[in-house]
């Protein structure tokens, strides 16, 4: 069986419907445990006090913002190279989820910045590049929806997703390349995380919870796109008769 047939919408519907409940369960378990540890068991920070609890939302949301964009760009590349419609649907289904995670990262970052830095916003490299990431998501969504023919919209939006991917390493390394109020990486470091396990555990649990949220929701949204094209095909067939 060819790779294309393996990734057929019918097979996707069948397998994804089976996987989805497990992703929902894993999301609830990880987020529940993460919230319990993050809000109750973990200590306040010796410098930041209780505001450190914003980290358990802000950091996983920011990771997901980059993860979703990377997934969107990879799917778009898959669509442009192999003309695989399911890859385009995966990118299209991912964009609003990534935009929401980016919005959450921006708002929670602002709510953390005010008490700790004394400002809601600063136009430095990290914050500005994440704002650009948010607008790239919005641009992708607008472009994908701008054409009557979903294949044309998908192609134009895929190119935007690939070009915009250059922003992802800029977001990641902005804290090392430029002076910024934002602190550098404290988990994904070559010499290991520089954060105590009482805070690292809830942080990673929340990140896992958000990842499973993405898996469950992207399945629902890809299925909706498959159904939408089915409705369109059936309506066209009915009109042609």
């Amino acid at each position: 069986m060819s790779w294309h047939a393996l990734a057929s919408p019918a097979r996707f519907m069948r397998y994804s419907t089976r996987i989805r409940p497990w992703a929902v369960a894993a999301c609830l378990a990880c987020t529940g445990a993460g919230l319990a540890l993050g809000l109750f068991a973990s200590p306040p920070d010796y410098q930041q006090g209780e505001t450190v609890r914003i980290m358990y939302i802000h950091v996983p949301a920011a990771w997901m913002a980059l993860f979703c964009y990377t997934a969107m760009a990879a799917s778009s590349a898959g669509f442009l190279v192999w003309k695989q419609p399911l890859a385009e649907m995966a990118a299209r289904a991912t964009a609003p989820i990534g935009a929401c995670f980016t919005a959450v990262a921006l708002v929670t970052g602002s709510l953390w910045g005010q008490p700790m830095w004394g400002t809601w916003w600063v136009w430095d490299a990290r914050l500005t590049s994440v704002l650009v990431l948010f607008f790239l998501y919005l641009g992708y969504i607008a472009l994908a929806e701008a054409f009557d023919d979903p294949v044309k919209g998908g192609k134009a939006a895929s190119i935007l997703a690939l070009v915009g991917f250059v922003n992802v390493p800029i977001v990641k390394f902005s804290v090392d390349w430029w002076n910024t109020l934002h602190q550098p990486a404290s988990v994904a470091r070559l010499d290991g995380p520089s954060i105590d396990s009482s805070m690292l555990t809830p942080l990673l649990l929340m990140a896992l919870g958000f990842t499973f949220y993405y898996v469950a929701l992207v399945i629902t949204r890809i299925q909706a796109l498959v159904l939408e094209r089915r409705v369109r095909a059936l309506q066209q067939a009915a009109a042609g008769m």
Partner: protein
Amino acid sequence: MSGIADYLAMGGYARFVWPAYGVAAIVLVVLWVLSHRRHRSLEASVRALEPEWRREAP
């Protein structure tokens, strides 16, 4: 009782910590609900056009 009030006060940072959790919960729940509502209505449309359709069809 003051234990709970102390906890909710978040060391004086309640107006930053709780809105951060609230915004995240609202955004993620609204996106979830809208996505599932859309999925349900499209599934109903397919069934109306093609009564023999099943989600887990081979």
